[in-house]
């Protein structure tokens, strides 16, 4: 793993982009790493575009600025691709994980990213609705991202989910994470 990895999350208020960023950060802390996780809000309202950032490093993080060249981009809501430049600044050999039923190749073409970029898709909304009965895609995207990048282990993610949620909800989320981990596909 690089010394510092930067991840950018795109979602809408209420979908859990900020939560996903925090869960990832906490998982990394369990693995002894240094982290930073912060949101960027526009209007503070459900449905408005929300961006969240995570930095994970082997060294203490001094930077306190936005992430301009993320290594990984995660998109929790496909419709954002129309209005938000989700792939902006993505590093040349970066990865992008999108919540979509479409194939990674189709998404890659729509995004217009260069060939080196690895595109992953996972039908996170379908998985979340099936298991959680709500379109909260945060944990599904977390599972898919873990599969795509291997930044943190599934065990660490499960540990933070267990800490964060009530027993029964945590268990449902384990199922969501495991399924999205399995179902995520790349180009």
């Amino acid at each position, binding site marked *: 793993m690089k010394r510092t990895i930067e991840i950018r999350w795109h979602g809408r208020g209420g979908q859990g982009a900020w939560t996903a960023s*925090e869960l990832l950060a*906490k998982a990394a*802390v369990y693995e002894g790493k240094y982290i930073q996780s*912060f949101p960027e809000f526009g209007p*503070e309202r459900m449905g408005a575009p929300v961006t969240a950032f995570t930095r994970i490093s082997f060294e203490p993080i001094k930077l*306190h600025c936005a992430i*301009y060249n993320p290594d990984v981009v995660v998109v929790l809501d496909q419709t954002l691709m129309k209005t938000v430049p989700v792939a902006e600044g993505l590093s040349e050999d970066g990865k992008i994980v999108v919540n979509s039923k479409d194939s990674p190749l189709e998404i890659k073409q729509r995004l217009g990213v260069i060939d080196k970029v690895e595109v992953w898709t996972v039908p996170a909304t379908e998985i979340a609705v099936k298991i959680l009965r709500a379109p909260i895609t945060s944990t599904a995207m977390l599972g898919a991202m873990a599969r795509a990048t291997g930044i943190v282990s599934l065990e660490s993610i499960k540990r933070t989910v267990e800490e964060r949620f009530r027993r029964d909800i945590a268990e449902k989320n384990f199922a969501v994470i495991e399924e999205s981990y399995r179902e995520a596909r790349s180009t």
Partner: protein
Amino acid sequence: MKSVVEQKVLALNGDEAVAYAVKQCDVDVVAAYPITPQTIIVERFSEYVANGEVETAFICTESEHSALTACLAASLTGARTFTASASAGLALMHEMLFVTSGCRAPVVMAIANRALSAPINIHGDQSDTMAQRDSGWIQIYAENVQEVYDSVIQAFRIAEHPDVLLPAMVCLDGFQLSHSMENVKVLPEEVVKRFVGVRQFPKVLTHEGRFAPLRLDPENPMTLGPLAFPNYYFEFKRQQEEAMKKALEVIRQVHEEYAEISGRRYGDGLLDAYQLEDAEIATVCLGSTAGTVKAVVDELRAEGVKAGLLRIRTFRPLPVEGIRRALENVRAIAVMDRSMSFGGHGGAVFHEVRHALYDSEKRPFVVNYIYGLGGRDTSPMQIRAIYKDLEGILQKGRVETPIRYVGLRE
């Protein structure tokens, strides 16, 4: 020499770190009003109260003005008090800030620095606390979330110290620190409780001719906050200034004592000099952006550039001597201000740094960079450009534009 205590690592954002520190400090009264980006402090603390994790009396007041008044009044009865605010909320407390310091009440307040309206902006800049630098409060600016946690604990000791007895505000950049989750090593609760101790009171002569602890107590009636005519007001203000002067040494001592327990230091507690010993060009910066500057300084040093940074941690009282000594041998200095003083030819920090250097024999070039207003991000590239400008000034041997704006669209 105490040994460093074992500490567990938590992932907390700035606001959560404040609430966690307050939880450990045995605070008697918290009176607060919510305002972005401080809301999480009060929400989290109210959870501790509801769960019975603290025995604090939690008062939801109708405004920030009332919140500070409630804290002041409680403090005068002997309670250890805390509140938090930002931006317009702090501005609304303006009158009471002066009353609190005039009454010598050691209230501790966390400010999640946010821009002032108008236009409305919820994001981070330091105009709110800079505008209160004359209010008689101690001001400490944190660079990262770990420092936020450490500084809140230290603030109670500093404020309550018998040589000081002044209220203190711990400042954390809005969103950049308040909402940023970072690794935080926390001390065990017993260690914190031992460190902050129980509040002590100086003895004062009351009108009944007895010496009694300075606090409102029916057993020892006394009058606090009276009227003072022109023949006495001035002397009371001079007393306050003396407390500020003594605070310089107290802040250093408390910081040192805390460093022995925690293993962490921030310069000498007043100033954090980074790679400044042989620096030819340097910036002066307060708050979290100083961290970004440190990362850039590391890169520049690796390229052979003699760059440095002076981070001012304690802004009030201003460590004038320390600033002069730290910057005297630097040849070109960029002072970064995250606030504006309209019509004042530069920001507050710019003025004060120039003031600190005025009497020194060497005269470095000093320029001002206004940055980050309304939450505008400052990138490492922009910081590099500042150092490039400083090199340009040294080459030309003069300053063409003393006041500049980082990332401003013309």
